C-alpha cells in the first residue's frame, strides 16, 4: 500500500474545502433551475447565484454588482484586457502569470504599444517612475501575489502610477485571495481577477471585479451577469466559489501556521540537502508565506518533479509543461542579480506551495523524499 500523497501544489489548486463540498451537495439536492427562468426552480437558482456574488464581493471589499463571474482567472484577465482597454497601450510586468503574458504578446502582435516593468530581486514587479520619459499609457496590468514565488507587489506604487497617468489599473489577484487581506477599493483597482480553485472552491470558476462606473465591453454577448458575460450561469461553480470566499477569513487566520510550516520546510531542506538555493521572495520581503521556490544545483527541475511524484510528493516546476515541452520559468529569468547563473537556477527550480490542509508530517516526509531523490539524481549524474 502506497503512502498517501504529500500535496505541495496549493498554488495550482487548493483542495476542495469541506464547507464547499457541503454547499455543492446542498445545491445539487435543491433541484435548482436556470437563474434566468421566472419559475420557482429558476428563482431558487437566482437566489443561490446572488448569495454567492455577495460572498465573493464581501471577501474582496467590493459591492455584489461589481462581481462578474467567469470561467476562471484566465478569462477574468482576458475580460479586463479586452473589455476595459481593447487596443490601448499597456504597461505590464515581466513576472505576470502566463495568461497575462499571452495577452501582452497578443496585444504587441496587433501593433499596440506594450511596455514592460521589471522585477526587484525578490521577484516583485517595480512600478516605473511616473515621469518616465516614455510617457503614460492608458492601462496598467499587474500581478498582486506571484504564483511562482509568493512575493507581494507594492500595489500602492502601482495605484499612484495609475493615478498620475490617469490610467486604469487591472490587478491579477488570483494568488492573493485567501493569503492576504484583499481590498480592491484600497488597491485602487479598476478591475481585478480571482479564481475559485486557489481558495478551495471548484475549478473552472472565477470572477472579475469591475469597479462601479468602469465601462466593460463583454467577451461573450448575453444578458447574464448584467450583460457583461453571456451564457447560462455555472450555478454550482458560483455557489462553490461563494462558499469558499465565505471561509476566506479562516484561511487568513491559518496563514501564520502555514508560514511556520513553510519555514520549517525550507529549514529542513537547507539542513538535509546540500546545494539548494531559494529563489526570490527571501525574508524580510513581504510574501504570502505559503510558497517556496528552490533550485537544486546539478539537478533538472522537471526531472526532479517527476521523480518526486513517483515517490508520492506533488510539486510544480517553474512553468507549465503539460505537453512535455519545458521552458525555464520567465519569472525566474526576470530576477535580477543572479547573473549568468539565472538560466541554470531556472532549469533546476521546483515550486513547493503549502496551504490550509498541509500537515507537519507532510513537511517532514517532503524533506525526507526530496533529500533522497536529489541525492539519487546527483549520484547518477
Amino acid at each position, binding site marked *: 500500500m502506497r503512502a498517501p500523497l504529500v500535496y505541495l501544489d496549493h498554488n495550482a489548486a487548493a483542495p476542495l474545502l469541506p464547507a464547499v463540498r457541503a454547499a455543492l451537495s446542498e445545491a445539487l439536492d435543491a433541484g435548482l433551475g436556470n437563474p434566468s427562468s421566472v419559475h420557482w426552480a429558476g428563482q431558487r437558482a437566482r437566489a443561490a447565484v446572488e448569495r454567492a456574488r455577495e460572498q465573493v464581493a464581501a471577501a474582496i471589499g467590493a459591492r455584489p454588482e461589481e462581481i462578474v463571474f467567469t470561467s476562471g482567472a484566465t478569462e477574468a484577465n482576458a475580460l479586463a484586457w479586452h473589455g476595459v482597454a481593447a487596443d490601448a497601450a499597456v504597461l505590464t510586468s515581466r513576472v505576470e502569470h502566463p495568461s497575462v503574458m499571452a495577452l501582452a504578446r497578443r496585444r504587441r502582435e496587433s501593433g499596440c504599444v506594450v511596455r514592460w516593468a521589471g522585477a526587484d530581486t525578490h521577484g516583485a514587479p517595480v512600478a516605473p517612475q511616473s515621469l518616465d520619459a516614455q510617457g503614460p499609457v492608458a492601462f496598467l496590468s499587474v500581478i498582486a501575489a506571484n504564483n511562482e514565488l509568493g512575493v507581494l507587489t507594492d500595489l500602492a506604487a502601482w495605484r499612484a502610477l495609475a493615478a498620475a497617468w490617469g490610467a486604469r489599473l487591472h490587478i491579477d489577484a488570483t494568488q492573493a485571495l485567501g493569503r492576504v487581506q484583499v481590498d480592491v477599493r484600497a488597491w485602487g483597482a479598476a478591475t481585478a481577477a480571482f479564481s475559485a480553485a486557489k481558495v478551495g472552491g471548484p475549478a473552472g470558476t472565477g470572477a472579475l471585479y469591475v469597479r462601479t462606473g468602469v465601462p466593460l465591453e463583454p467577451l461573450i454577448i448575453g444578458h447574464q451577469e448584467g450583460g457583461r458575460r453571456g451564457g447560462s450561469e455555472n450555478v454550482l461553480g458560483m455557489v462553490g466559489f461563494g462558499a469558499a470566499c465565505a471561509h476566506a477569513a479562516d484561511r487568513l487566520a491559518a496563514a501564520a501556521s502555514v508560514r511556520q510550516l513553510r519555514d520549517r520546510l525550507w529549514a529542513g531542506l537547507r539542513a538535509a540537502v546540500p546545494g539548494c538555493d531559494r529563489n526570490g521572495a527571501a525574508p524580510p520581503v513581504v510574501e504570502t508565506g505559503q510558497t517556496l521556490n528552490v533550485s537544486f544545483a546539478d539537478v533538472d527541475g*522537471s*526531472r526532479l518533479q*517527476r*521523480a518526486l*511524484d*513517483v*515517490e508520492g510528493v506533488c510539486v510544480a516546476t517553474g512553468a507549465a*509543461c*503539460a*505537453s*512535455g*515541452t*519545458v521552458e525555464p520559468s520567465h519569472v525566474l529569468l526576470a530576477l535580477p542579480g543572479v547573473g549568468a547563473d539565472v538560466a541554470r537556477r531556472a532549469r533546476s527550480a521546483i515550486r513547493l506551495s503549502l496551504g490550509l490542509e498541509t500537515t507537519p508530517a507532510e513537511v517532514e516526509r517532503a524533506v525526507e523524499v526530496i533529500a533522497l*531523490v536529489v541525492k*539519487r*539524481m546527483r549520484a*547518477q549524474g
Partner: protein
Amino acid sequence: MASTPNAVSRVRAAMRLPTGARVAVAMSGGVDSSTVAALLHEADYEVIGLTARLYDVDAAEAEGARKAGTCCAPQDARDARHVAGQLGIRHYAIDERATFAATVVAPFLAAWQAGATPNPCVECNRHLKFDRLVREAHALGAAALATGHYARLEPDHDGHIALRRADDAAKDQSYFLWTLPADAAAFLRFPLGAWTKPEVRQHAERLGVPVAAKADSMDVCFVGASTAAQWVAKHGGAPAGAIVALDGTRLGRHDNLAAFTIGQRRGLPIPTDGPAAAARYVVAKHADGTVVVGPLDALRVGRIDLAGCRWLGPVPAPGAKLSVQVRHRGRPVDVVLDGVDARVATAQVTVLGDLQAVAAGQSAVLFCGDRVVGGGIVKDSQRAHACAPAEAPSPMLARSPWRAGHG
C-alpha cells in the same frame, strides 16, 4: 487466445523482476508499447509511462505524420497519455527535442548531404532510448525500462545479456538495436520479444488498450509524409552534381543527391539508350554530388568496412563465421570477419553470399545465428569479383533501406 494467467506469467518471465517492482515503459503512443504498459500493469508491476517529445511539427507535417502513422509526434504523445490515463498509471512527457535534433536529425541531414544513407532509427535508439530514457528511468528509481521492441533480451548461459531476434520474424527489430551498451542491456526489457503481432493486438483488445486498432508505424517519423529527398531539399538541400558511368562517362545531371539511393533503378534522369543503356543502377554516391551508375553486377558487394563498431559481448576473433544484415528485414548473408580493431572500433568482413546495394552510412549488423554479436556503420564496400550472374535486386532495393519499419 492465450489466457490471462499465461500472459501474466510470460510477462513476468521476460521482466525477471518481483511483482511490485517499479518499471518505466517507453510509450510511443502506438499499440506495441501501449500494450506493454497494459501487460506490465496487469502483471502487478508499478508502471510509469515515459514519452519523449522529439520534435515540433507544423500543421501540414502533422497531418502527413498522422497519415503515415509515424511515432512520437505530438498526437502520439497525447495517445500515450490517454492510454496511461485509462490504465491508471503515471505518465510523463519528456522534452527531448534538443537531444533529438542534435543526435538524430542533424546527422541524418549531414549523411544525406555527404552521399551516405543514414538510419535514424538506429541513432534514436542509441541516443534517446538507450541513453536519455534510461537516465530518466534511473532518476525515477525504476528497476528496469521496458519498450515495445520486437527482440529478445535474455541472460545467456554465460551470464551475458544476449540480444536475439524476435520470435515473430516478420516483426523482428533486432537490426535497429545493435548499439545497445552493456549497462543498458541489463536495465532494458523487451517483453514482446516472444510475442507475435496478432497476439499483441489480441491482448491490446482484451485489456481495452485505446489504440488497439492503430496502424503500425512506418517510415522515418520526423520526415512525415514526404520522402527523404523532399525533406532534405526543404532542410538545407543536398549537392547537385553529375551522373556518370563507371568509366567516368558523363550521362546527365541531377539537382539533389539525396534523391538517389544505392541500388535505385527507376527515375534516373539519364538517356535510356546509348552508353547508359547498360548502366541502369545507382552504384555509388559521392559527397561532391556525383552519382555513379552501373550494371547490376556492380552492386554486388564482396567486402565491407565498418566503423563505429559496438560489440554486445566478447569481441569476436578474426576468422569468425557470422552473418550480416544491412537493412531492416534484409536477408542475413554469411560473412567472415577479417579484422577487428576494438581500439578504434573498426571491422572488416568478407561477404560469402550474395549481397547487393550496400550504402555507406547504413548499419551493418552482425549475427551469430539469431544472436546480435555487434555491428557498425558501413564506411566503405568493395565490389564482389565473382563472375556468377547476380540475381535481380529484391523489390526492397527500389526503396530506401530505412523506409520500412522503425525501431
